[in-house]
C-alpha cells in the first residue's frame, strides 16, 4: 500500500519532467521504512533527499508533494471557484511560489476530492491540476512562458 503510493508519486514526478532513477526509488522505500510516517515534515524530507538530485527539481518536488500528500484544508474563502485557475495562473506568471502551492492545494481539494486519507485518488481525478503543475515546471526551467 505504502509502496504503491510511493510508485504513483514517482510516476507523477516523472510526468512532471523530473528524472528519478530506480535506485533512488529503492532508497526512498528504504527511507520510508525507518522514519515516522505520521510526521509529515520527515516524510517530505526523506523523499526529497532520496528522490531528488538537483535544486531545480526540488521546486517541483515540493509543489507536487503538497498536492499528493494534501496538508488538509487551508482554503481562502475570498476566491470563487471560477477565479481559482486565474489566480493560479497569476501566481505562476508572477513567480509567487508560496501562493501557488497554496492555490494548487485548494484546487486539488475542490476538484479532486482529495483528502489526507485518500491522497492518490484525489490526484488522479484532477487533470487540470496536472496541466498547471506541468506549466509550473516548464516555467521553472524557462520554457513555458509562451505556453500560457
Amino acid at each position, binding site marked *: 500500500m505504502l509502496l504503491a503510493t510511493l510508485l504513483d508519486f514517482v510516476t507523477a514526478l516523472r510526468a512532471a519532467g523530473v528524472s528519478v532513477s530506480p535506485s533512488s526509488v529503492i*532508497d526512498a522505500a528504504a527511507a520510508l521504512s*525507518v522514519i515516522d510516517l505520521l510526521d509529515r515534515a*520527515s516524510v517530505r524530507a*526523506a523523499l526529497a*533527499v*532520496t528522490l531528488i*538530485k*538537483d535544486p531545480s527539481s526540488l521546486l517541483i518536488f515540493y509543489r507536487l508533494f503538497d498536492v499528493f500528500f494534501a496538508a488538509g484544508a487551508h482554503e481562502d474563502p475570498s476566491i470563487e471557484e471560477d477565479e481559482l485557475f486565474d489566480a493560479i495562473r497569476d501566481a505562476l506568471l508572477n513567480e509567487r511560489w508560496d501562493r501557488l502551492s497554496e492555490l494548487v492545494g485548494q484546487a486539488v481539494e475542490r476538484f479532486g476530492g482529495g483528502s489526507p486519507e485518500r491522497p492518490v485518488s484525489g490526484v488522479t481525478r484532477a487533470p487540470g491540476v496536472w496541466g498547471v503543475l506541468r506549466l509550473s515546471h516548464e516555467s521553472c526551467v524557462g520554457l513555458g512562458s509562451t505556453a500560457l
Partner: protein
Amino acid sequence: MFLQNQDEVHQALSRVGYLPSTEIATTVFLATKLEKPILVEGPAGTGKTELAKALARAFALEMVRLQCYEGLDESRALYEWDYRKQLLALQGSTDQEVSSIFSADYLLERPLLASLRGGGEKILLIDEVDRLEVETEALLLEVLAEFQVTIPELGTVQATSKPVVILTSNGMRELSEALKRRALYLYLDYPSQERERAIVSAALPEIDDELAARLVEVVARLRSMDLKKSPSIAETLDWARSLLALSVSSLDDDVVASTLPILLKNRSDIERALKELLPRV
C-alpha cells in the same frame, strides 16, 4: 553509528551549537540507517562543511578530511606506496623477498583509505567535490558505494567500520550521475530569517532579541541583492559578535555603514549595498 530517530540528531547537533532544520536532521538519520553518503550542495557559507564538523563534535567521532582541488589524484586521495621504505627494504635483500614489499607495511594511507581503516567510527568529509575533474570523481565511487578500496598489488581493503561520509559542493559544476546516485542529496540554502535568528541566539545567548531580528533582516536583504559574494552564516555571526563587542543596542544607519565590511569583503559589493540599504547616506 546507531541512532533511534532524527530527534536524536537534532538534539545532539543543537547541543554543539549547530541548529539543524528538519531536512538536515532527517538526512543525517537516514544516512546512518541506509549507510549512504550525504551530498550537501548549496551556495558558499550555508554551513555545509560546518555540518560535518558539528557531527564529529556531537557524536565524538574522529574526522578525516579530504580537501578536493583540481589535479587531485589517487596518490593524494586514496593511498601511495612508500617508495623510500621499499627501496631500503630491497637493499641487501634477496629476490624471494621482493614480493613482500607490496604489503600493508609499505602503504601510505591517504584520507579515503584512512577513513576505512583503524579502530573507531569516523566522519569522512570530502570537501568541495565540485573542484575535481569529472574523471577524478570516479576515484571516489568505490569508497562511496562499497566502503572499500581495491589496491591492485594487495587486494580489496574493506572498512573495519563504515564511516559517515559527507560530500560538499558549491555547485560550480554539475556532478556526475554516478556520484549523485550513490548519495542522499541535501540542498542547503541560506536559512530563513526565523532560523538564522535562532542560530544567532543559540551562538550568542546574551544578544537582544530585537537586535538579532534586525540584524538577520539586514543580512536577508543583502542576500537578495545581486552581489558578488552574499554574506555567509558565519559572517552573520561575526557581525553579531562585533556589534555586541561595540555595545551596540540598536542598528542605526551609521552603525550599519561602519560595520558593513564585516559582512561584505568586496569593495564594489559594499558600495552597492550602501547605496541600496541607506540611500540617504
